[in-house]
């Protein structure tokens, strides 16, 4: 027992890191679902593209195994550009693959999303190849800062950075959603798209903003996972997408705060599970949770049972 307790703070840190990333991915699923009622299967690929963008930024800013700028600047650039590129790809997929099908049966939209997912994977496969890209972070953080210890708990710089950035982004999103005009219009549109139109809200524009924000957050997650686990390849979007989706369902799909909560809980659950179970079971945890939630509380933790929209 003692040994478990000793490991607990460590697992919490790890869980929060992972959970923050899952939350960022889940937000993209949940926002799109909230407005269009569709599962954006391509969201995992948006995350993957964020990872590749981050890798390229780091790669281009590294000479002779040495970053050519201040590390904080490099990390910021990686995240910001990943958000920009993923956001752009998100907007393009909406514009060309989803908007033309807005009035088509829902299944067509789902199939289109599946198509986009396969297309983006193959696009990256074609131009980047199948090999794993390694993030050379050695020169990014000086050896003596890479980890620090508090008691028996190891804090790695990257984990602390990832936790800070994810929570900062979630706080920013909360402010946007709650306080700004466009944020309120996003909520109004998600709650009643026709009534939103009656207010003069340009729903098409709101959908674009939703894809932009959701995809940008997914891209940030992609780069941060790259920095944490130092790898990206064309296929990482699949598993990340599943985890983000699970987190969104756990929190209640359609609910942004639910996505945040669901992501963090999923991260903690996975992380705590490996304290007791062999680490091979880590991924099983997510899907066990998904199945249990779908059976006992399909509307998720924070989702509301709302009658089908007429």
């Amino acid at each position, binding site marked *: 027992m003692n040994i478990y307790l000793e490991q607990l703070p460590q697992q919490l840190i790890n869980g929060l890191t992972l959970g923050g990333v899952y939350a960022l991915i889940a937000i993209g699923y949940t926002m799109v679902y909230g407005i269009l009622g569709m599962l954006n299967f391509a969201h995992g690929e948006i995350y993957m593209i964020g990872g590749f963008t981050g890798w390229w930024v780091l790669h281009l800013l590294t000479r002779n195994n040495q970053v050519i700028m201040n590390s904080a600047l490099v990390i910021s650039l990686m995240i910001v550009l990943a958000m920009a590129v993923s956001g752009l790809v998100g907007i393009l997929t909406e514009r060309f693959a989803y908007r033309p099908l807005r009035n088509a049966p829902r299944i067509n939209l789902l199939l289109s999303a599946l198509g986009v997912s396969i297309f983006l994977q193959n696009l990256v496969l074609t131009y980047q190849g199948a090999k794993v890209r390694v993030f050379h972070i050695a020169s990014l953080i000086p050896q003596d800062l890479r980890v620090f210890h508090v008691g028996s708990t190891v804090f790695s710089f990257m984990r602390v950075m990832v936790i800070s950035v994810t929570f900062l982004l979630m706080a920013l999103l909360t402010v946007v959603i709650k306080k700004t005009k466009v944020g*309120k219009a996003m*909520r109004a549109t998600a709650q009643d798209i026709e009534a939103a*139109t009656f207010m003069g809200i340009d729903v098409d524009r709101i959908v674009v903003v939703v894809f932009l924000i959701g995809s940008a957050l997914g891209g940030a997650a992609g780069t941060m996972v790259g920095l944490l686990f130092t790898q990206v390849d064309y296929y990482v979007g699949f598993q990340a997408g599943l985890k983000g989706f699970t987190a969104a369902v756990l929190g209640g799909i359609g609910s942004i705060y639910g996505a945040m909560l669901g992501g963090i809980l999923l991260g903690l659950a996975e992380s705590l599970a490996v304290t007791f179970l062999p680490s091979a079971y880590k991924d099983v945890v997510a899907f066990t949770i998904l199945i249990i939630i779908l059976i006992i509380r399909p509307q998720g933790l924070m989702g509301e049972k709302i009658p089908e929209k007429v």
Partner: protein
Amino acid sequence: MTEMTPTPILEFENVDTYYGNIQVLYDINFKVYPGELVCLLGGNASGKSTTLKTILGVCKIKKGTVKLRNERVNGLPTKKIIARGVAIVPENRRIFPRMTVLENLEMGAYLRSDKNQVKEDIEKIFELFPRLKERINQAGVTLSGGEQQMLAMGRALLSNPDILLMDEPSMGLSPRLVDQQFELIEKVNRQGTTIFMVEQNANMALSIAHRGYVLQTGSIVLTDTAQRLLNNTMMQEAYLGGTEACETSGGTKIP
């Protein structure tokens, strides 16, 4: 109405509206003049809501013209039409359920950029409906039917509309609330807002309206002043449920 020379604030000319291939409105013609309170009466599925959605550009027309102040607006996106001074209290009110009372009101002023004036106007709405002020931070879904109706009305007024569209304001309200609601509509109209109201409750609607049109399966079959419609035999039989027709003044029957 022949003595009225101003341009109509709203006008339909030979409008046909379809949902896909299904025609719902047939050759609709009507006019609403500034300052008027006009009602459109008709039974279930006669096309009343469709008429309002046609004004807003939510339903597309295949033939005819919709004009606001003599300018064609059909084909424009909804937000452009709203921006020209149209607001709606929709059927079933359509309050944003998980937004607060204040946020719902703010949505009504979505296209306005005069922030400070909006704040003042919200205060005016709260004077009109003190109940809403008490519930300012409550989610829309938690309001009673009557309170939701107030909120929908306040939300629509916050865009400072030239013409206010109302879709069955009496629906789902108790008789006492219906009375209050119609008094309020009359008051808003007297303060200068033109109102085009859709109703099934013909008696109530005609008691406050200036003029009325009667819609039957997508066609306008009758139009007259409210007073004469109240006394019209055809109306009595079809919509007013009365038997004691005073006189059979003709109205304008439209074949």
